[in-house]
């Protein structure tokens, strides 16, 4: 569907351009036909060929964009990256959703530094600020967290406003993870709790909330939160159960990184 939209949105300007070329060609033909018919035909053909040449890179870029989107839809991250690189080679600039999807493909492949470059290149700089998709800023913050720059991650993620649902949950979760990395446990716990409020079944947020609470000496809170989570979503018992047992035994769960794959 996305590919369909992509093709339609590129066909429209192509058709308008082709129409302009046809009209210009015929107009030139009629103008020259009074003096020389072969010259008129030559002018007509030349204009059409030039228009074809001018359109060629645009269509090649479309081909690579479509390839990238198909690969992205099938979770083929390396192929997505390869297509987008060729798109750039032909003069394309990945902005908006294209930059976002390219960055996601790179991040899912573990290439966080390259993802950061792609996201920054896709932003539209304005006086003192940037225009970007909230999703892209979320990814920028996430990639900076994974690159070991929690301060920068917090700054990027805090710049986001008006997010809702899963994206907002992820935003708070990664702010929490960044605070965690900085050793600011209380602030981390508050962010994890905020993420859980939005997506009450998001296990990574619960895990780290319970871990931080247990490590801060608030084991009862950790057990209570974990037990409430299990009651809310018994289907996650295979992962929540062992955590609950460990907390009840007085153990503090280890810090671990959950792989959150996006598409």
């Amino acid at each position, binding site marked *: 569907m996305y590919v369909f939209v992509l093709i339609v949105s590129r066909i429209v300007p192509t058709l*308008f351009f082709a*129409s302009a070329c046809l*009209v210009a060609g015929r107009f030139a033909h009629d103008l020259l036909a009074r003096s020389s018919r072969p010259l008129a035909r030559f002018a007509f053909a030349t204009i059409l060929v030039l228009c074809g040449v001018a359109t060629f890179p645009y269509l090649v870029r479309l081909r690579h964009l479509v390839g990238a989107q198909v690969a992205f839809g099938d979770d083929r991250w390396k192929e997505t990256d390869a297509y987008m690189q060729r798109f750039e080679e032909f003069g394309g600039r990945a902005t908006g959703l294209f930059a976002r999807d390219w960055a996601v493909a790179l991040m899912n492949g573990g290439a966080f530094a390259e993802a950061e470059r792609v996201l920054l290149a896709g932003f539209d700089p304005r006086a003192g600020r940037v*225009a970007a998709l909230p999703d892209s800023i979320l990814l920028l913050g996430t990639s900076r967290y994974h690159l070991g720059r929690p301060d920068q991650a917090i700054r990027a993620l805090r710049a986001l406003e008006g997010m*809702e649902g899963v994206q907002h949950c992820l935003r708070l979760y990664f702010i929490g993870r960044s605070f965690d990395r900085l050793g600011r446990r209380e602030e981390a716990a508050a962010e994890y709790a905020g993420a859980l409020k939005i997506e*009450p079944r998001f296990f990574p947020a619960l895990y780290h909330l319970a871990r931080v609470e247990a490590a801060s000496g608030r084991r009862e809170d950790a057990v209570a939160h974990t037990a409430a989570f299990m009651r809310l979503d018994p289907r996650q018992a295979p992962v929540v159960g062992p955590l609950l047992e460990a907390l009840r035994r007085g153990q503090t769960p280890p810090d671990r990184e959950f792989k959150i794959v996006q598409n």
Partner: protein
Amino acid sequence: MSRIDVRVEDVIAVVTALALVVVAGARALAGSFELTATDYWDFSFILLPVSLLTFGAALKYAIGGGTSQLSRTAARIGSTFRDWLPFLFVLLLYEALQAEVFRGGFRHDFDRELLNIDLRMLGYTPAVTMESWISGPLTDLMTLFYFLHLILPPVLGLKLYLQEKMLFRQFLVSVLAATALGIAGYVTVPAVGPAAAFPEMFTVSLDGALYGSVGRMIDMVRAPRDVFPSLHVCLSAIVLWFSWKAGRGWFAAILPLVIGNWISTMYLRYHYFIDVIAGWIAAVLAVVVARQLLRVEMALKRERGQAVVRTGLRTP
């Protein structure tokens, strides 16, 4: 409508635009705002028929032999743009609802009230009861149905345009009136829909190959509070009505798609049932209003024509 050839769709579009500007101006008194939409890909669906018609006219001119005339081609292309422009304009109005002034200016969302109406009418809201249907393929199918609101109007519009210009105008004016009603609803009864307002009501996540990517794409261009009435339901109901006028084959082909579109608005948790009912009512209103307005326009034009003949002031 006395001196220039003003059409009903022009009047609706301009009045709606002015109303939006007034609301925006009032809300902007407290601070600055800007249009934050980043991608207008949805316009390409309206522009596709225009570009096809333009290309057809250009091709005819280019290979039309000695009888081809640039002025006639330019007139044909110009009239195509003129006929379809209100569609684009009204889509622009919808996009304007993404401006910061509308995005953050609402003090109160009416989701609780809309949900309560559903609960009083049915005892539940369909978005929740439909959870038992959820599967990946069905979610993808519903996403496809939901997306059709961008495809069906231009496709049917092109068919009507080629079939009968007056029928096309009736369809166009109905769509414009529906959008004006929809925007009025969004501004007076802002709400975000069951998924965003009450995530705790749902126990099963929606997931599918199409759902994520298409949903994200649609979210980019949708107004942040576009729930009451459901314009998806309203526009697809109008499409269904005019497909009946286009021919029985068209109606038979479009009927299942439209029904799927209506169900998808609730299955995908964008709407309450009351929004769907409001969408149907808005569709009926829009079609009736469009018919009346076009009658008024024709009467005014007839009167003007007679007056001109009587006074002998007709100029070439």
